[in-house]
């Protein structure tokens, strides 16, 4: 049963503000993906695919009632930002777009 005032359940709406911060972070990933999509469709799609993951992470994190901080989820964010930055450096240095995922991987030396 929900109390009449949402402040009773969530003082300062801290939980809701945090959930919205997760959503904004997901949107930021989408923005990076959209910019990459212009020149590098494959990389752009990879980065865009991160957006729903962040969204779900935020949902899960904000619904956890327990006191445990979300070290794993936050570390995942840092890993993803670092990964996106690494992709961005490759994209910035490679120049024109690879036509396929295979061409991209061969350029990256995989």
């Amino acid at each position: 049963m929900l109390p009449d005032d949402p402040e009773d359940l969530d003082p300062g709406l801290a939980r809701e503000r945090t959930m919205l911060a997760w959503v904004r972070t997901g949107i930021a990933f989408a923005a990076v993906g959209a910019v990459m999509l212009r020149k590098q469709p494959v990389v752009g799609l990879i980065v865009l695919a991160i957006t729903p993951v962040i969204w779900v992470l935020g949902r899960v994190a904000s619904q956890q009632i327990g006191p445990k901080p979300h070290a794993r989820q936050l570390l995942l964010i840092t890993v993803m930002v670092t990964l996106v930055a690494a992709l961005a450096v490759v994209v910035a240095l490679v120049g024109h777009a690879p036509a396929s995922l295979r061409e991209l991987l061969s350029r990256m030396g995989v």
Partner: protein
Amino acid sequence: MSGLNGQGAGGGVTSSRNGHDDHDPGPSDAGTEPDARFTLANERTFLAWNRTALALVVAGLGIAQVLPPFPGVPWGRHVLGVPLIVLGAAVSVVAYREWQRNQAALRHSTPLPRSALPQILAGTITGLAVLAAVVLLVSAVR
């Protein structure tokens, strides 16, 4: 004014000092659980830094890929864009470490450590602004 989990600040220092296990408990487990609002605020700060990091990545990418090349300075776009992207990665990693340190400080009710991120950000952006001016001047002279 009660916290979400009913535990206020205070008392965290004694519980960690009197603990008698020899191995150092991880920073996430030592001390007392702080007010959930502080934990959530720390988490929001971390997420805000990561959005800043993503903005730096997208700015660097835009400079390197979307901007037309500087006349006479073929390396100009890369020399400005790539450091911005690297700065974004660095901000994200440092933000995670500061989140860990802040959470440990909250658990032990000690003062929050000073953040290195404003210095890193301001220093690198200042350097890049100077570099951008140099690129523009070289481009204008040639």
